[in-house]
């Protein structure tokens, strides 16, 4: 106690003594961009070693009072620029400071703990940061995850399809979990937000199957990407250990924009654009010869008659073109108001996105308002609140899988020859589709698949300076928030549709209401002090998480024409009710030590418990340790060519939560013949279940060359997961099928490389380029339970192998092969060989900026069942060609022989995509003043394209597709998806 108290006392004395000195002088100057000479607004000037400082005004001017008459040093910094130090003395004249752009982000501050951050040059982990400029600076993307493509090394981001309103999967450093989707934890301004892919009910009504075939959006889609200041990606346990139980698949930390003191700026932005399909495949033409080959004898006369009629009238319909190739209008309006004073700062934004889809009657609307307010209650208490209300309405139409109902465009048209006209009759009715169970034109025109979300996310932070001296402080930090999410879904197939008319109770409606309410709270004490030359940062705190969720789905069949109220249904059914509640708590300790920016070390530990675990009161510990060495900061370093060289190493442990209900052995409810019954569940609960844990060792080196014009970041990691949760399949003879087990162990190993630099830096041309490369390999080190196959649509069409020594992404299928584990033939692997991205931005003359981003994924196979369907219907482009000349058309003879196995549908999904292209012009100040005087500050105009080009040999609309949505493994199955759009925009931004 005494040892602690004495330094405190000393520090307190120093602190109090500061106020006694009255002598002072002031320094003035301007700060500007070294390259363009433009003044830098809001640059910070800090008296080194003190908490005294100021910021530059609109013209880049500053004036700083120094509280004594001694020489001193100031540190000048501005976001995006390298900070510099200058010596000052009482007689110094006006300073003219020119800052260089921080091309390699060495100055960036990165969050490393629950209550601490460190600047990138001292970081011991490969944490990726995506700034708002990286995220949304080139083009406008609907969802935040969609805007991360190619910007984070180690992240495998996949779009599930092209439907408006999102639907993405992010896997960081491979697969961390065999159950669920292995998706990262997402934290927005300190709030643990729900990124659930919620049920929409489409797969129920269309007959596709489980809710994972709904093609629903993951709810990160609600967040307006334009509100985001930056995103930090903690890719694995070594960086994310302090997040504990939910961090196995990594953590994505999103920070939204905040106000700054100074003039109030009103910024208006408008995008207007269109979307069109990125790629279409074409459909096969028909001939009498093909009809005679394709149809059985009894059917030929009517088909020939239809074909001849179409020939006579020239009325052939390319259904792919008809359904998918529409120009969709895209509109986005944004308003930001920011400003404030020393005490209170604010950022208020409003956003309206109104984007149609390329399929008629689909689209995405999002209304978002945000208020981020920071207030200093007094000199030692700071309050921050961030409030965000979002309403979104998404119509995603009917694509993907179906069974019997025909409620999928792509599935239905796979079977319709182009000589039959399905389009609406002049009397408003629709022709009966004789090739499938439904007329997809009628579905597109009249059916509904809508999801309406109302969401409120509220964050707060309260920082209390308990003790502050010149070189130490003790701070209490409270943070927390809530995320309330309500999703009302409606899937409606009206009674007059062909398939509905064929039912005993025509008309089908399924209405869902899902609500989730998550709260989290965190309290921490942070003590920053010095031990000799070592700066120490000590933190201790606790975390509390509560998740509540309820889903209620009601279905009505046999509908009064035109009515969508459930009371207007002959058959009224509670389709689903599900409630879940989870509580978690944790404690953490972290110690950081920094020896003069030369050696930076961190150790930390977190203990977590959760009601999901078999023993809800058992604490699980997650330690971490890391070390970075800035060789260039040592005195012995003399190279002028290498100006940063930082070897680093980090280790950490995390966990993945147990699924809700894993401990229960329930008696399910059932109804038969008017009586209520209880049935024994096919799952036996495991009351010993533990969270799945991961350990990761990561090491690498960061280097800067030529005065940081060029930088290199190289990382190697080995991530081992243990206790992976998977269902142990019991002998089904016992009447129970599964029990959750903690047996499997996975290993992900990989490398991540980033090279970035300013290739040209001239007054009239600056060219910045960044190349990222990453590669991950997965292996099942231990399965612990018998080898099994699972996922997709079974062995006949390609499924996945879970066997020791194999990656679970291994695709296997018929024919049976007893020599292989699992008993089937190995046909492919969905894991890419590597990913690479190229980002370039060119600043030309004054105010012109061109950027583009290219994304390359090499290898990785898909299971292309769209081809399977169109082959069955004879509509695949080139179906009736006969490449090998044996008289059997290609469509009946897909390789490999004997043309009946699963290998036919496993295809290489390598692609190169030009993700983003943007060209912007900032109108010069002088011109603006000429036009508008002082009322307008800034005008920026530009054009951009999202998903500009796709290069691939894959025989589908997009190699990125997943009919099962976000999945740990089976995320590459292609079934009649919504084609991916290319989006072309014109942009205008005006700042007042």
């Amino acid at each position: 106690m005494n040892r602690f108290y004495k330094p405190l006392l000393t520090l307190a004395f120093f602190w109090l003594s500061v106020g006694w000195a009255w002598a002072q002088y002031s320094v003035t100057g301007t700060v500007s961009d070294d390259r363009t000479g433009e003044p830098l607004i809001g640059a910070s000037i800090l008296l080194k070693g003190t908490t005294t400082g100021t910021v530059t005004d609109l013209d880049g001017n500053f004036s700083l009072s120094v509280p004594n008459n001694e020489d001193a040093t100031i540190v000048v910094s501005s976001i995006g620029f390298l900070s510099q130090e200058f010596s000052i003395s009482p007689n110094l004249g006006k300073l003219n400071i020119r800052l260089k752009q921080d091309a390699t982000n060495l100055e960036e501050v990165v969050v490393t703990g629950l209550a601490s951050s460190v600047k990138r040059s001292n970081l011991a982990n490969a944490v990726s940061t995506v700034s708002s400029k990286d995220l949304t600076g080139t083009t406008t993307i609907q969802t935040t995850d969609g805007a991360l493509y190619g910007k984070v090394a180690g992240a495998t981001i996949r779009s599930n399809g092209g439907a408006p309103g999102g639907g993405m999967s992010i896997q960081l450093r491979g697969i961390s979990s065999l159950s669920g989707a292995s998706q990262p934890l997402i934290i927005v301004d300190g709030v643990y937000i729900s990124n659930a892919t919620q049920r929409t009910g489409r797969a129920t009504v269309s007959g596709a199957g489980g809710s994972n075939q709904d093609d629903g959006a993951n709810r990160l889609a609600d967040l307006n990407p334009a509100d985001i200041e930056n995103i930090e990606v903690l890719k694995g346990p070594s960086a994310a250990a302090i997040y504990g139980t939910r961090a196995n698949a990594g953590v994505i930390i999103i920070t939204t924009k905040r106000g700054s003191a100074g003039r109030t700026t009103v910024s208006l932005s408008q995008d207007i654009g269109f979307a069109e399909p990125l790629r279409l495949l074409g459909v096969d033409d028909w001939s009498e010869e093909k009809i005679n080959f394709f149809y059985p004898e009894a059917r030929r006369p009517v088909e020939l008659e239809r074909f001849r009629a179409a020939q006579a009238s020239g009325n052939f319909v390319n259904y792919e073109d008809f359904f998918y190739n529409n120009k969709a209008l895209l509109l986005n309006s944004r308003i930001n108001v920011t400003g404030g004073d020393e005490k209170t700062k604010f950022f208020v934004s409003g956003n309206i996105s109104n984007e149609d889809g390329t399929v008629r009657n689909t689209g995405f609307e999002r209304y978002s308002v945000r208020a981020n307010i920071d207030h200093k209650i007094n000199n030692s208490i700071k309050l921050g609140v961030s409030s965000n209300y979002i309403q979104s309405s998404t119509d995603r139409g009917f694509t993907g899988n179906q069974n019997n109902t025909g409620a999928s465009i792509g599935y239905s048209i796979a079977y319709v020859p182009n000589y039959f006209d399905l389009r609406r009759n002049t009397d408003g009715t629709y022709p009966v589709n004789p090739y499938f169970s439904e007329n997809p034109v009628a579905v597109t025109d009249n059916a509904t698949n809508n999801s309406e979300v109302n969401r409120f996310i509220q964050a707060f932070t309260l920082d209390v300076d308990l003790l502050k001296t010149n070189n130490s402080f003790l701070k209490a930090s409270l943070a927390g928030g809530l995320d309330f999410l309500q999703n009302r879904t409606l899937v409606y197939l009206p009674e007059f549709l062909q398939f509905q008319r064929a039912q005993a109770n025509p008309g089908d409606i399924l209405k869902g209401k899902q609500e989730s309410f998550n709260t989290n709270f965190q309290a921490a004490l942070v003590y920053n002090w010095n031990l000799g030359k070592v700066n120490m940062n000590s933190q201790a705190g606790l975390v509390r998480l509560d998740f509540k969720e309820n889903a209620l789905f009601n279905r009505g069949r046999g509908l009064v024409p035109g009515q969508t109220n459930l009371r207007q249904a002959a058959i009224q059914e509670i389709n689903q009710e599900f409630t879940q509640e989870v509580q978690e708590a944790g404690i953490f300790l972290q110690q950081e030590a920094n020896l003069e920016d030369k050696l930076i070390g961190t150790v930390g530990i977190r203990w977590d418990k959760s009601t999901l675990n078999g023993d809800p009161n058992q604490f699980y510990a997650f330690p971490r340790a890391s070390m970075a060495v800035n060789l260039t900061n040592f005195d012995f370093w003399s190279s002028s060519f290498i100006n940063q060289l930082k070897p680093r190493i980090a280790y950490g442990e995390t966990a993945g939560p147990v699924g809700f209900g894993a401990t229960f052995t329930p008696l399910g409810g059932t109804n038969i013949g008017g009586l209520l019954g209880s049935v024994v569940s096919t799952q036996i609960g495991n009351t010993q279940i533990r969270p799945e844990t991961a350990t990761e060792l990561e090491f690498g080196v960061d280097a800067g060359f030529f005065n940081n014009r060029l930088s290199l970041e190289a990382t190697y990691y080995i991530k081992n997961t243990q206790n992976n949760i998977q269902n142990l399949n019991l002998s089904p003879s016992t009447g129970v099928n599964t029990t959750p087990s903690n047996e499997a162990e996975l290993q992900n190993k990989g490398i991540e490389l980033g090279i970035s630099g300013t290739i040209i830096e001239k007054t009239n041309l600056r060219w910045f380029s960044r190349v990222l490369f990453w590669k991950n390999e997965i292996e099942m080190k231990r399965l612990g339970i018998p080898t099994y196959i699972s996922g997709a649509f079974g062995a006949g069409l390609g499924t996945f192998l879970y066997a020791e020594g194999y990656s679970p992404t291994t695709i296997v299928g018929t024919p049976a092969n007893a020599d292989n584990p699992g008993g089937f033939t190995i046909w492919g692997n969905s894991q890419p060989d590597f990913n690479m991205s190229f980002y370039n931005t060119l600043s030309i003359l004054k105010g012109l900026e061109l950027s583009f981003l290219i994304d390359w994924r090499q290898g990785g196979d898909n299971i292309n069942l769209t081809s399977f369907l169109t082959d069955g219907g004879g509509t695949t482009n080139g179906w009736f060609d006969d490449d090998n000349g044996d008289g059997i058309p290609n469509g009946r003879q897909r390789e490999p022989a004997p043309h009946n196995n699963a290998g036919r549908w496993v295809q290489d999904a390598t692609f190169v995509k030009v993700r983003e292209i943007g060209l912007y012009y900032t109108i010069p100040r002088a011109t603006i003043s000429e036009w508008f005087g002082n009322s307008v500050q800034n005008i920026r105009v530009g054009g951009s394209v999202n998903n500009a080009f796709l290069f691939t040999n894959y025989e589908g609309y997009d190699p990125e597709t997943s009919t099962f949505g976000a999945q740990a493994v089976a995320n590459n199955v292609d079934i009649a998806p919504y084609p991916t759009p290319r989006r072309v925009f014109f942009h205008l931004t005006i700042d007042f």
Partner: protein
Amino acid sequence: MKKTLKNIGKAMAFAGILAACNPLQLDEIQDPNNPSVGSVSNNASREQIQFLITGLESRHRGYVTNLSQAWNTFGREVWYLNASDPRFQTDWLGQNGRVPDRSYFGFGNTGGGSWASPYQAIKQAEVLIEAGANTNNIPESSKNAVVGFAKTIQGYQFMIPANFVYDNGIRIDVADPLNPGPFVPYAQALDAIKGILDEGEQALSSAGSGSFPFSLTRGFDGFKTIQGLRQVNRAITARLNAYRKDWQGVLTALDGSFMDLNGDLNTGPAHPYGAAPDIFNPLYYVPNAAINTIIVVHPSVLDDATPGDLRVATKFLERTTPVTVTTDAGALVGTHQDARWASNTTSIPFIKNEELILLKAEAHANLNQFTEAIEAIDIIRNAAGLDDYSGPATQDALIDEILYQRRYSLWAEPWGHRWIDARRYNKLDEIPTSYDGGTIFTQFPHPQAELSWDQYTGGN
């Protein structure tokens, strides 16, 4: 100094507030959606026993869809045309040389409706028996009634996996989910099932008389007494004994069953169906609906029909537009659909008087009691509007005649009668494949999950 103390005070107050809320305390969270299996294992209430009995009726119908679609396809009583998934045609018909594997389409790793589902019914019955045994809330006679009903259903359900894998054998000892017994050969399994049915009958005979003491659905209308359930038990035993080739046993069992030579041929217990929250009759399709997923009558059944057979007129509906489904193995055309179900809430019988009379005929024929056999055959023939049997009175001829009558009398029942019948008389090669170029399967291998379990435990 003063300030420091103040700050330390602040920190303590802060810590105090935290301690008061104790954010580290977690509530105990029970399953908010369901009761637990454990809740019925000790001193269950009468209501809980009732819920388990109704649950058993529900599990009891779990096989219906799969067997109706698949087994009846294997025996070429029907084609299950399904344009949405070609494998219902290509795989189930064994086209292009496909043969069943351990994870075959439509059955998965667990054997699905042909394996896992019947075993779930057996498990449900087991839990019911235990709940009945471990409660003081129902009298002894009721406990016996529970056992009798549970074992009767178990006997019925055990026959499904047994016939699915046939020579590969099934597990009979399945009470302990983590320690299932070995696979026993088909014949031995059937004998064990006989034992279970007999125990059920025995228990029912100790359950007093009068009404069954719990509610049963309308599927058991006419059989809701102890006596009625004994008759159902014996009817099931008669079917089993035919598989066991215990022909005298068939006749004995029939004596105790609800067989009525002069009665309605359709009399028998059934699986009820209804609107939500129940489920609809899965075999019902709207007449002439413009759809391409439907069970259609196999063309051989139409081609082989005797002119004037009333069963053809009542069971098959000729569609105005045939259903055509194309797959990567070619096209199939269905001209007739199933006309047995008046609506989507019609019950589906699981054993009926008509089958019992045919079992009587079959037993007599096998016992060389041709007169009695022919008498029984003629009951069936006459009911179908056909003349008396005029063929030779030999065992072979009579068996052929009985098998033929069974094709029409028991057409497409949720049991796969034709497939099983052809197999037990070594006549699988008589099932035609010319209509679809497929293969006739003999049996299925054990589902992959069974193999995996044995690997996991390293045993058996």
